[in-house]
């Protein structure tokens, strides 16, 4: 920061003008930066306020217990959408975490310096930034058509494909931070590599890896586009075999928000509030964990 004192005793009168223009430019920069930051904070506040205002006015106990209603029917809720989102996100994370953690482990532990690892890291970054709608298209061709219907499995797989790159990235980064001396201590005791990794390195990087999983969860909990063609939606509870479409919050919001029915619009806001608060909570928890980790 600006800790050094500015020299004040120099400058004959001729320098005055130059100094003034420099100060003007400086002040302008500071003002602009402050303005932009205030703008950013303001926009977030605006969005959250809107959500709170619209969402809270739509919240009633039955929102959490009843299923989605027909248009204009009173007393409906979004319980099936909440449960469905929970199931889909859970599926996605359950599939993505082993794959992501193992892949990240490979990149960090086995593959350092190898060409293959370079390529995979690059590919992972592409997947990380790939438009999620293309992933939805892919899973539709892969699963929905052959299986003969929309299903929660396809939705879960689509979400998993989105979550994996996040987990791979964070796992690799976290594992790299672990000091080599820990690994060497394990090797010196005669432990095979897999034991070193699982019992020592993973344990050391545990908090960071959990953060990665939490971030991935937050990311996929709000995804709409991939679910449009895989899990679609359902006006009732999902089936035990998850076929036939699974209700979920993002697609429900998409359908209801754009409709002219008052009760549906209210439910869309309620759903938006639920989903945003959940994701914000997950993100905050993840960041708190991360801070604690790096503070060590």
């Amino acid at each position, binding site marked *: 920061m600006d800790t050094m004192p500015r020299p004040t005793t120099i400058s004959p009168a001729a320098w005055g003008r130059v100094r003034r223009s420099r100060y003007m430019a400086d002040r302008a920069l500071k003002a602009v930066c402050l303005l932009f930051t205030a703008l950013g904070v303001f926009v977030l506040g605006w969005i959250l306020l809107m959500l709170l205002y619209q969402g809270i006015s739509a919240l009633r106990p039955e929102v*959490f*217990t009843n299923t989605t*209603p*027909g*248009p*204009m*029917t009173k007393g409906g809720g979004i*319980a*099936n959408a*909440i*449960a*469905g989102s*929970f*199931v889909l996100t859970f599926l996605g994370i359950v599939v993505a975490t082993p794959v992501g953690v193992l892949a990240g482990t490979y990149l960090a532990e086995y593959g350092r310096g190898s060409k293959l690892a370079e390529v995979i890291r690059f590919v992972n970054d592409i997947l990380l930034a790939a438009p999620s709608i293309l992933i939805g298209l892919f899973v539709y061709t892969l699963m*929905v*058509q052959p299986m*003969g*219907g*929309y299903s929660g499995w396809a939705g879960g797989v689509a979400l998993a494909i989105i979550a994996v790159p996040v987990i791979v990235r964070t796992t690799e980064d976290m594992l790299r931070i672990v000091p080599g001396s820990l690994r060497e201590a394990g090797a010196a005791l005669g432990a095979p590599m897999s034991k070193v990794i699982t019992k020592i390195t993973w344990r050391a990087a545990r908090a960071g890896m959990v953060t990665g999983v939490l971030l991935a969860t937050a990311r996929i909990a709000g995804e709409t586009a991939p679910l449009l063609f895989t899990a*679609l*939606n*359902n*006006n*009732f*509870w*999902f*089936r*035990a075999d998850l076929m*036939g*479409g699974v209700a979920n919050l993002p697609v429900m919001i998409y*359908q209801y928000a*754009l*409709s*002219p*029915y008052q009760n549906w619009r209210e439910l869309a806001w309620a759903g938006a509030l639920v989903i945003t*608060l*959940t994701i914000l*909570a*997950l993100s905050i928890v993840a960041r708190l964990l991360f801070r604690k980790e790096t503070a060590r």
Partner: protein
Amino acid sequence: MKFLPYAAAAGLAVASCSLAVSAAEITGAGATFPFPIYARWAEVYNKETTNRLNYQSIGSSGGIRQIRAKTVDFGATDAPLKGAELEKDGLVQFPVVMGGVVPVYNVQGVPAGQMKLTGEVLADIFNGKISKWNDAKIAQLNQGVTLPDATITPVYRSDGSGTTSVFTTYLSQVSEAWKSGPGAGSSVQWPVGQGGKGNEGVAALVLQVPNSIGYVEYAYAKQNNIPFAQLQNKNGKFVAPDAKTFQAAAAGADWKSAPGFGISLTNQPGDEAWPITAPTFILVPKAPEKPEQVAEALKFFDWAFKSGDQMAAELDYVALPPQVEDMVRASWQADIKDKSGQPLFKK
């Protein structure tokens, strides 16, 4: 902490799943035109039989595509498929209910039901030829109403839609310029305006955008109190849309004249006839891979024929005449067979 309600909801879900194991679940997708009545029927059917009919309104073209891809148990479309297409895809088509497409508007100073339009003027508006509300052609039809000097925003369907098909068929019948221009179909090149998704999207846009005009199924207009216009029918009379005028349009229909009952009811003669009336159809496979599912779907529609008339009337749809319903049932028995060749529907 935040997971507790989710855990509870999940628990509830699992519990209700195990309770509902014996209930059937049918998935259908397609037209947004009949969505309100299908949704109402599904709700009541669920209460009476615990069977669940999950209908997703993704547009008529979506319904056709999904039933062809066999990703749903039945598809729904407003634009009937032709005989050749039904043959090729091995589908059986039947009508369920009828309704009307109505032009809806949001014009300052013109209260509901006060706007009078003709088919040709409507076509010109959507063609961009008439661009202001106080244009001479519109003013001529609406003497006594003050029309604002504002640009018209036409609102159309951005997704492939049977409602669009019905609407553009009508426009093609009453306007040469439209016929040779955008033409009739479920998805046309709209020269001007904005797109909304589904009947719901168009209704929402018209409500939101001042000085706009769109076309939606009548139930949407009524349920959301969107002003709809009167149209001049083939006999030259100005009629307002309601169950009576829809029925008048359907009065002279010959349901056997097209394969799969695929007739059109637009621009029908009759003093009381509403010019944009249309039936809406269901598509099921002739020899389905999941016969039990289709059998359940047929049971649902049979129930709807028997007990759904009142609900349809409440939402301003027009039920099929009883003799047509019998024709439909006969077609189910004759055409839809399970794997051993037995008809799926038993009376």
